[in-house]
């Protein structure tokens, strides 16, 4: 089935199966920043934005993206790079496998929450798991990135 989408601000047409999930379609079309971690909707690695909202692309049928705006980390490169520097600076990145999903969630949070507290940040990032670092370094990095005291 053919669906028209806007991906990273460019119109595109995807040919998808009715039971294909967005993470698989995006990877098939070359958006390899999308990682499949748990593939059960638990880890946040596959996070992309659908109409500017962070979603788990492993758990949304590709057909649901019809007519919508998809944003992957390739579409917010400069912002992502800036955010990544904070993660690196705090030693909050080791294997890096979870980083694209985490950064997409952090950038979504930056847009959505005004003056978040530490508690707000922890709550917003609850759905992003990291097996390497623990979360203390990530939290330090995110607080510095967002200018939270």
């Amino acid at each position, binding site marked *: 089935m053919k669906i028209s989408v806007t991906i990273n601000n460019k119109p595109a047409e995807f040919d998808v199966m009715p*039971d294909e999930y967005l993470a698989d379609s995006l990877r098939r079309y070359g958006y390899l920043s999308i990682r499949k971690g748990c593939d059960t909707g638990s880890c946040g690695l596959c996070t992309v934005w659908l109409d500017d909202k962070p979603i788990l692309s492993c758990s949304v049928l590709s057909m649901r993206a019809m007519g919508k705006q998809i944003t992957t980390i390739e579409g917010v490169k400069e912002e992502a790079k800036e955010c990544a520097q904070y993660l690196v600076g705090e030693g909050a990145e080791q294997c890096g496998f979870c980083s694209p999903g985490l950064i997409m969630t952090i950038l979504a949070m930056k847009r959505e929450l005004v003056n978040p507290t530490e508690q707000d940040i922890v709550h917003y990032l*609850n759905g992003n798991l990291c097996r390497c670092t623990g979360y203390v370094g990530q939290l330090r990095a995110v607080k510095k990135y967002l200018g939270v005291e």
Partner: protein
Amino acid sequence: MITIKDYALPDTLEEAYNLLNKKRSNTVLGGGAFLRLGSKKIGTAIDLSKLMLDAIEETDEFIEIGAMVTFRQVETDPVLKKFANGILSQAVKNIVGVQLRNIATVGATVYSRYGFSDFITALLALDTKVLLHKRGLMRLDEFLADGAKNDILVKVIINKTGRKAAFNMMRNSQSDYAILNVAVSRLADDWKVIIGARPHRAAIAYEASKYLSGSDLTGESVQQAATIASKELSFGTNIKGSREYRRKISTALVKRAVLEVLA
């Protein structure tokens, strides 16, 4: 793994209903996140996205939540954040992560009558009805008991009676499924005590509710109500917790919720 042969985006509820009833394997989609964890062979997946069911509306008497409203909408909606002490927002805010809450829908959760649901437990403590396309309005407790096969849930309607309410749950970690959840509400002398994720679906503890409604609400009677609730409902064992553990913590959660309502 699920399989889907065909995908439809009906323009009307009647069209969706007819399609649903055309073939046994046809299925209405919610967010699709939980569905994918199963192994259902779906003929036609029916997507309700075009039916404008994604709004939360408030009138003088009711709050209406459309079937395609996501948990994130419930969590962040300014009306629901205040209504009945915000128990609906409270109930959904720890469900996995914000990304999943942007996907999971009210309609799929309620229609599927999931036992693990935090949202259903909170809804049941309020004066809630569901609107089904063919069957019409149904009280939530009746719907949870009987279901409504091959129908489509259009919206959830909550009567703004002015209940005070509280929601409590126990989880192993913040984004995990609840081991047990409890909602308690009060409207004058009418109390409702609900226990869910037992792991069976949420149910009203009628004896405990009745006891509270006629009690003097001292510390002793609150404890007694919690004990009654833990004895009158059945609990089960699954990977999250044993029947005995659930029964034990139900007493503490009910007591805490009652005290929150009284505060």
